[in-house]
C-alpha cells in the first residue's frame, strides 16, 4: 500500500499514569498498550512505513514496540522509525503537531516511505479497530484534500472535543469547531486523517513558516476557512474509545466487559497484535471467585474479582477482593485486602488487609512500584 503512517505518541497526558510513559504506551485491555490498536490498524491495512512521533518519555514505548516484528513491520519489508525531537532545543515550548511534522519532513520525503503517495495520521488516545483501506478508498473517491475520520455520539454537550464537525442533510460540512464543547449533532474527530503526502508536506512548510503549528486549528479549520483545503468526513461506524482523561480511560477500560464493545474493538476488521510476553495461562485456584472480568495471561487467582480488568501476572491472594478496578501487570493484592474503583499501576503491592476505595468518577491511582 502506498501509504505512510504517522502516529503521535503523546499529544495528551493522564496524570500519574503518563508521568513516566507516553499515551501510546499506556496499558489497555489487559494485554495491550494503546499504540497496539493504531499499529494493528495500519499493519493490517498493508501500511509498511510508519513513523512514531514521540517527544518525551519514550523509553517504555521503544521497549514495547522493539523492532515491531509482532506487527510484521520489522525492517526488510518497510519498517518503523521513531521520530524523536532532535530540533526541539531551539524551541523549548511545544507549539503543536505541525511543528513535530515539520521536523519529520526528512522521514516523509527521503525516509522509509519516500515513494508513498498518501499519509495516514493518527493519535494514540483514540482506540478503534478500523479498515484503513476502505477509508483510503473513500478519501480518493471524494477527491477532497483531507479526510477526517469522525464518530457520532461522542459529543454530549459536556465533553470538549479537539475537533468537532457538523454535516448537513446532504453530508456536506456545515460547521467545524476546535476545542469546542459540542452538542450531539456534531461528530467528534477521531484524530485520524488521510491526505496526500505532497499536500501535507507543502502545507506544513507554509504554515510553520508563519508560526501556525496547531493541527486541528491551523491545518484543518484554518485552511478550510480560507478555502485552501477541501474536507471529506468519514463517519466511522465501529466502536471508538476516546481516552482523553483518567475518568474516560477508566470508564472505557471497564466498558470492555460489554460483549459488543469488546468484540468490535478486538475483532471488527482484524486481530489486534501486541508484544509477546510468553506468560503461562492464568491459573484459577480452588476457591477463587471471578465474575464479569477480563483477564490477561499469567494471573494467579485465589481470591475474588468482580467487574474488573486484570493485566498480565496479577496475583490475587486468598480472601482478597477486587471490584470495578484496573489492575496492571505484576501487581499483587495481598490476603484479605479490598480494592474498589482503583487503578493500580504495574508492580504495585497491596498489603494484606489493606482497603482502597475510590469512586467511579475519581478512581484511586497507585503509582508503579508502590506498596500500599
Amino acid at each position, binding site marked *: 500500500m502506498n501509504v505512510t503512517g504517522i502516529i503521535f505518541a503523546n499529544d495528551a497526558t493522564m496524570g500519574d499514569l503518563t508521568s513516566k510513559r507516553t499515551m501510546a504506551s499506556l496499558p489497555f485491555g489487559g494485554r495491550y498498550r494503546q499504540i497496539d490498536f493504531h499499529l494493528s490498524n495500519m499493519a493490517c491495512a498493508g501500511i509498511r512505513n510508519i513513523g512514531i512521533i514521540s517527544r518525551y518519555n519514550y523509553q517504555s514505548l521503544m521497549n514495547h514496540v522493539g523492532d515491531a516484528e509482532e506487527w510484521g513491520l520489522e525492517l526488510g519489508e518497510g519498517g518503523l522509525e521513531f521520530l524523536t525531537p532532535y530540533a526541539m532545543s531551539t524551541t523549548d515550548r511545544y507549539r503543536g503537531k505541525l511543528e513535530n511534522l515539520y521536523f519529520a519532513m526528512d522521514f516523509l520525503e527521503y525516509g522509509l516511505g519516500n515513494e508513498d503517495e498518501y499519509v495516514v495520521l493518527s493519535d494514540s488516545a483514540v482506540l478503534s479497530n478500523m479498515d484503513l483501506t476502505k477509508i483510503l478508498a473513500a478519501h480518493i473517491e471524494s477527491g477532497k484534500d483531507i479526510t477526517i475520520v469522525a464518530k457520532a455520539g461522542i459529543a454530549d454537550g459536556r465533553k470538549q472535543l479537539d475537533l468537532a464537525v457538523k454535516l448537513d442533510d446532504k453530508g456536506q460540512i456545515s460547521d467545524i469547531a476546535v476545542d469546542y464543547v459540542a452538542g450531539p449533532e456534531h461528530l467528534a474527530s477521531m484524530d485520524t486523517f488521510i491526505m496526500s503526502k505532497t499536500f501535507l508536506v507543502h502545507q506544513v512548510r507554509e504554515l510553520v513558516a508563519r508560526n501556525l503549528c496547531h493541527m486541528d486549528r491551523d491545518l484543518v479549520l484554518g485552511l478550510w476557512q480560507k478555502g485552501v483545503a477541501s474536507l471529506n468526513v468519514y463517519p466511522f461506524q465501529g466502536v471508538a474509545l476516546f481516552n482523553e482523561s483518567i475518568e474516560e480511560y477508566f470508564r472505557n477500560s471497564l466498558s470492555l466487559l460489554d460483549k459488543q464493545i469488546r468484540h468490535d474493538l478486538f475483532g471488527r476488521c482484524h486481530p489486534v497484535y501486541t508484544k509477546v510476553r*510468553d506468560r503461562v*495461562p*492464568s*491459573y484459577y485456584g*480452588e476457591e477463587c*471467585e471471578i*465474575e464479569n472480568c477480563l*483477564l490477561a495471561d499469567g494471573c494467579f487467582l*485465589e481470591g475474588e474479582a468482580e467487574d474488573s480488568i486484570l493485566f498480565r501476572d496479577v496475583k490475587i491472594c486468598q480472601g482478597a477482593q477486587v471490584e470495578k478496578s484496573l489492575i496492571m501487570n505484576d501487581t499483587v493484592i495481598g490476603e484479605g485486602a479490598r480494592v474498589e474503583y482503583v487503578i493500580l499501576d504495574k508492580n504495585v503491592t497491596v498489603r494484606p488487609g489493606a482497603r482502597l476505595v475510590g469512586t467511579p468518577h475519581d478512581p484511586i491511582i497507585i503509582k508503579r512500584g508502590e506498596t500500599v
Partner: protein
Amino acid sequence: MYFQKKRCIAMLLAGGQGSRLKVLTEKTAKPAVPFGGKYRIIDFPLSNCVNSGIDTVGILTQYQPLELNEYIGNGQPWGLNKTHSCAQVLPPYERHDKKSGWYKGTANAIYQNIDFIDRYDPEYVVILSGDHIYKMDYADMVAYHERNQASCTIAVRNVPLSEASRFGILNTNPDNSIYEFEEKPKQPKSTNASMGIYVFNWKVLREALISDEEDETSSNDFGKNIIPMLLGAGHKMMAYPFDGYWKDVGTIDSLWEANMELLGKEPAFQIRGNERQRIYARNSAQPSSYIDEDAKIYNAFVAEGCEVYGTVRHSVISVGCTVGEGALVEDSVVMPGVVIESGAIVRHAILGENSRVCVNAVVGGAYGPKDKKKISVTSKGAVVEKNTVLAPGEML
C-alpha cells in the same frame, strides 16, 4: 556462506507419527499436538535448548509436517532466528547416491543430515525427541559429559521395577558408567530408563552413523543399533541421572494425565518459571479472556482469548475457547479454538483443536478418584451434535 563454529548443537527428532495418540495425530505430527493451554509438545525441548544456551537446532520432520513446519517457521518465538542461531527444519530429501529418501530410523535421520551438522563443526551433538514434557538444562548434561570425558551420555530416570520392561534399560557401574544396554528387557536388572536424550562427541557419532548405514541388517535406530555398537566398541558411556518431572505423552491417557499434572497450587509439573525456565510458544493474537458473572472456575488453567460463561473444574482450557452458559467442563483438556455450547457436559475428555460440542451434548463420564478412567476424544474440527452423547472412551 559463513557458519560460526559451535561447541554444541541439538538435533530434534520430530518425525514420528505418534499413532498411539490416535485421532489427535491423524492430521498433525505428534510434536505439534497442543499442550498446557497455549503450548505444543515441541515447545518443551525447543525452549529447553534456548534456556540451555543451545542456539542451533536441526528439527527432523517426516510425518504430516505441514502444521509443524508452519509452527516452527523461522524460529522467532524461541529467539532462534538471529544471525548465528537457527531452528532449521530438515525433511527427508533425495540425493545423487540414492543413500537417501524417507528416514528409515532415528539414526538414519541424523545420518542423512551429517552435512548440516558438519557446517557448524561442533564438539558435541545433543539428540532430543519431540514427544516429552519436561524442563531440563542440557548445558548441565553437556558439562557432565565433558567432565567424564565420555563418548556418549544418556539421560536416565529411575522407573518402578514393575514398569522397567517397557523401557530401554541402562545397567551401570557405581560411577554411572554404562556397561550394558537392554531394550525392553523381560527381566530388568536395574531401573535406569533411557529418556531418549543423548549427548555425543560428534566425531564418534559421525563414524558410528556411517558404519551403521553400511550395515544392511541394521534398523538404523539409536537405541537398537548405535548405543549397543558404541558399547561393544568399548567407548566410555555415561548415564546422566535426572529426577525432575518428565513425561512421555505418547498416549491419550498420558497426554491427559500430563495436562492434569499442571493443575493445583503446587503442581507436579510447574510450568511457570523465571527467565531461564520459561517455555516459549508461537503466540496467536488473542485478546484477554472474558469470565462472565455466572461463570465458575476452580483449579483450572484458562489461556488467552477465551469466553467462559459456564462452569470449569480441574481442566485446561486453551487459547480461543468458548464455554457456553450452563455448560460444565470437568477433568478435561480443551485444545485451542474449541466451542462448548450452552448446556453441554464434558468430563474426562480431550477435545481436539477447533472441535465443537453442541447444545446439551454430553461427552465422557464421571469417575471416582481410584477408578480406571476412559478418556473421550474429539479430533480436530469434529462436531458432537446437539443432544447427542460421546460415551466414555469413545473417539470422534
